[in-house]
């Protein structure tokens, strides 16, 4: 079959720097091709630049249905985008214009290739087609009234409204939670098969790629490392890079890595409840509350990792924050080695030292104006006596940097000069500076790409062994939880519906929510 889109010796440059070098691939009608690789590998740039959607400059050749895109005037490129292409971006929350209704978006999309203005019924059908419930009602709504998953479906409906022959999907589901990811990907691939539409899928989710893509192109530092049938590469990568990438990606069917046996009970949370006043003046007026965590209890032993898993909005972060004393807690007690911890406002520095958090976005959790040394030394200022601090401060920072595998030169750097993985290591070093006995890891690796996340996960495992740390590991990634945690607690709607050791929870899931999560993770 003649390819619909063919990139030959494609090179991408930004400001004289080559970020993609000599990449060639072809997509036939109805075919799904995935571009994968670590962040910074040049996947998005290679996918978007030939169509004029980045600031980068493309050279080489990119042919779409017999037309050369490289060097084409922006005006002509624009009409090609309008007529033949559909785009889906990573961020569904911000990709819709806030002051335009769903109907306005769909109308614009349907007319972009010169099509007739769609009727209300047509638009409702478009929404029904992408699995959006109550489509009639959605048409009049503004984007902010829709959830992330609903917005992504609207974007997909808009991308398909003019019947494109090629869909460019840049991480279309990575902002959604596991159950939604599977639904949306299944829907997209189904639409490709039904309409004979081709799809260029940019993703770092290898499990998803194996399942949905026909072919896989693996990029490293802008070069094509490996390409071929997706299932073959994911199962048996030939390149070292491919092997490392696959090994770093947790899978539900991998062998269980060994963990040290936990010790005595360290922490016990009893009957924790957290609620927030409902947003909007109406909710506040009636004193309505949103029950985020409802009467939840859990225990954590010394040296043990307990994973809290669940969809977005299930209450796992709120529970973690309540236990660590970082967020509100309306009812319940936290017992630390047999003695109750005081409520949040009355916890002393010594109490707070015991549990240290590491958050999801490493760059957002570091002060951009502080050097790495200042950031790491900050807990010492509050938690160590002044005398010890003066003599030990500098040496301790160096020791902590060493402990998180960063060279001592990093001490003078600012966060802007750190990569995501390095910044997360600094955040971990800061948590360790307080000499805690327990870490609260809230999606600590989910903003990182697989290789970097794998490195950070391995580091956390090593630190747990060396320091005998207990870890409350909050994640939406079941395979990752299986890799790192002794026990897994599944949360749904503010309740823990099931807690079980990692080997039994997958073989014999008890709760319906657990079964759904496991099904969504495959």
């Amino acid at each position: 079959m003649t390819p619909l889109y063919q990139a030959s010796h494609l090179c991408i440059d930004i400001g004289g720097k080559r970020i993609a070098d000599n990449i060639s691939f072809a997509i036939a009608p109805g075919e799904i091709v995935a571009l994968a690789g670590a962040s910074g590998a040049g996947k998005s740039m290679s996918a978007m630049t030939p169509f004029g959607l980045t600031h980068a400059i493309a050279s080489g050749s990119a042919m779409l249905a017999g037309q050369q895109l490289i060097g084409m005037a922006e005006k002509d490129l624009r009409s090609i985008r309008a007529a033949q292409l559909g785009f889906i971006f990573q961020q569904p929350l911000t990709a819709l214009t806030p002051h335009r209704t769903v109907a306005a978006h769909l109308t614009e999309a349907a007319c972009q290739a010169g099509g007739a203005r769609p009727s209300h019924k047509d638009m409702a059908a478009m929404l029904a087609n992408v699995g959006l419930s109550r489509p009639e009602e959605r048409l009049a709504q503004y984007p902010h009234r829709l959830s992330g998953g609903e917005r992504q479906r609207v974007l997909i409906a808009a991308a398909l409204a003019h019947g494109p022959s090629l869909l460019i999907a840049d991480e279309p589901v990575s902002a959604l939670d596991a159950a939604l990811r599977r639904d949306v990907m299944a829907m997209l691939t189904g639409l490709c098969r039904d309409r004979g539409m081709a799809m260029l899928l940019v993703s770092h989710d290898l499990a998803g790629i194996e399942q949905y893509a026909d072919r896989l192109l693996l990029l490293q530092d802008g070069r094509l490392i490996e390409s071929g049938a997706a299932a073959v590469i994911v199962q048996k990568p030939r390149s070292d890079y491919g092997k490392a990438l696959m090994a770093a990606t947790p899978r539900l069917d991998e062998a269980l890595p060994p963990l040290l046996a936990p010790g005595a009970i360290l922490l016990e949370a009893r009957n924790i409840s957290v609620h927030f006043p409902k947003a909007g003046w109406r909710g506040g007026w009636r004193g309505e509350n949103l029950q985020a965590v409802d009467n939840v209890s859990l225990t954590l032993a010394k040296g043990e990792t307990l994973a809290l898993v669940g969809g977005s909005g299930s209450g796992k972060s709120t529970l973690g924050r309540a236990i660590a004393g970082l967020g509100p807690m309306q009812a319940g007690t936290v017992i630390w080695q047999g003695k109750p911890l005081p409520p949040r406002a009355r916890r002393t520095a010594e109490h707070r030292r015991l549990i240290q958090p590491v958050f999801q976005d490493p760059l957002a959790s570091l002060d951009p104006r502080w050097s790495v040394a200042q950031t790491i030394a900050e807990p010492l200022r509050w938690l160590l006596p002044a005398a010890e601090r003066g003599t030990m401060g500098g040496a301790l920072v160096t020791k902590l940097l060493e402990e998180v595998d960063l060279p001592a030169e990093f001490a003078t750097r600012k966060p802007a000069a750190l990569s995501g993985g390095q910044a997360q290591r600094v955040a971990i070093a800061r948590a360790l500076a307080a000499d805690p006995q327990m870490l609260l890891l809230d999606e600590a690796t989910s903003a990182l790409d697989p290789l970097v996340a794998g490195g950070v996960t391995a580091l956390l495992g090593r630190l747990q062994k060396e320091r005998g740390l207990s870890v409350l590991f909050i994640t939406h990634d079941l395979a990752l939880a299986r890799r790192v945690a002794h026990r897994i607690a599944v949360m749904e709607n503010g309740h823990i519906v099931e807690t079980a050791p990692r080997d039994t929870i997958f073989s014999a899931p008890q709760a319906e929510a657990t079964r759904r999560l496991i099904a969504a993770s495959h």
Partner: protein
Amino acid sequence: MHLDATSTSSLFVSGGLGALFAACHSHEYSPAEIFRLTILPLILRRLLTAIPTLLGIIILSFLLMRFAPGGPFDGERPLAPETRAALEAAYGLNKGLGTQIWLYLSRLAQGDFGPSLIYRDFTVTELIAQSLPISLLIGGLALLLASVLGISAGLFAAARAGMWQDQALMLTATLLTALPTFVTGPLLALIFGLWLGWLPVSGQGGGGAWLLLPVIALALPVAGAVAKLARAGLAEILGQDHIRAARARGVAPLTILRRHALRPALVPVASYLGPAAAGLLTGAVVIETVFGLPGLGRYFVQGALNRDYPLVLGVVTLYAALIILFNLIADLIYGWLDPRMRDV
């Protein structure tokens, strides 16, 4: 986002406001429904809070005026004690403060601002009725001019971000905001009135020519501020994901600007113009003095200097009511510019 020369210049010509109105279509809800669901509750809530706010402002200004030294009947030559007592009795100034406030408020509730103590042949209502139209006319025109000029210049600069046109416009805008009206007013009068002799420099002549200089002098600093806000607003919006999504759909640059970028970009402009409008419309003392116009601002200053209690209170009440009104209008405009704000 890159825009070619023809599209930016036609945007510039069409003017920010023209494009703004063209961008209005909320065809999914009927206007009546929008009014009932979002606008009416907002207005009712605001009215509810406006009454205590106004009361507080009136009482506070009343007390401040009274505790300031001096009084309306202090002059070069002291009045005979019995004359002064008779005057104070006539205007009710000999009663207790609480009684006076009560009397003032109850008259105000009937729409009576009381008599002026200095311009004794006039009531405060008459003085305001004489002077407010001039202030409203000059302020309203200045507001319009500042919005059109500022928004157009700001949008043009944002479309040419980083180029010399952008830098020149923003430098001008900064200069305009920095220059006080007591510099620009006389300067304009000097150049166009005295040297070139094109325009009258004082008073209200026949036709509309007398309006030009005061309106321009009043509008320039506001236009500068609006231009900077509009430019910053649009530059921020143009970098957002929904603009890239629209480009991906192949929407033409000018349409993207008009349909997807303009309304969110104008939110900061609206939040600035609300309170600024109240200030412009209730009289600019400096401009009225420079150009010899009998507007409200001058009466306010005269009244304050001469301790004309009812006149000052009347103007303060009017000013406060206008501020509340314009903040309400600004909120309604926010809601139109960005539907997320309707849900608060």
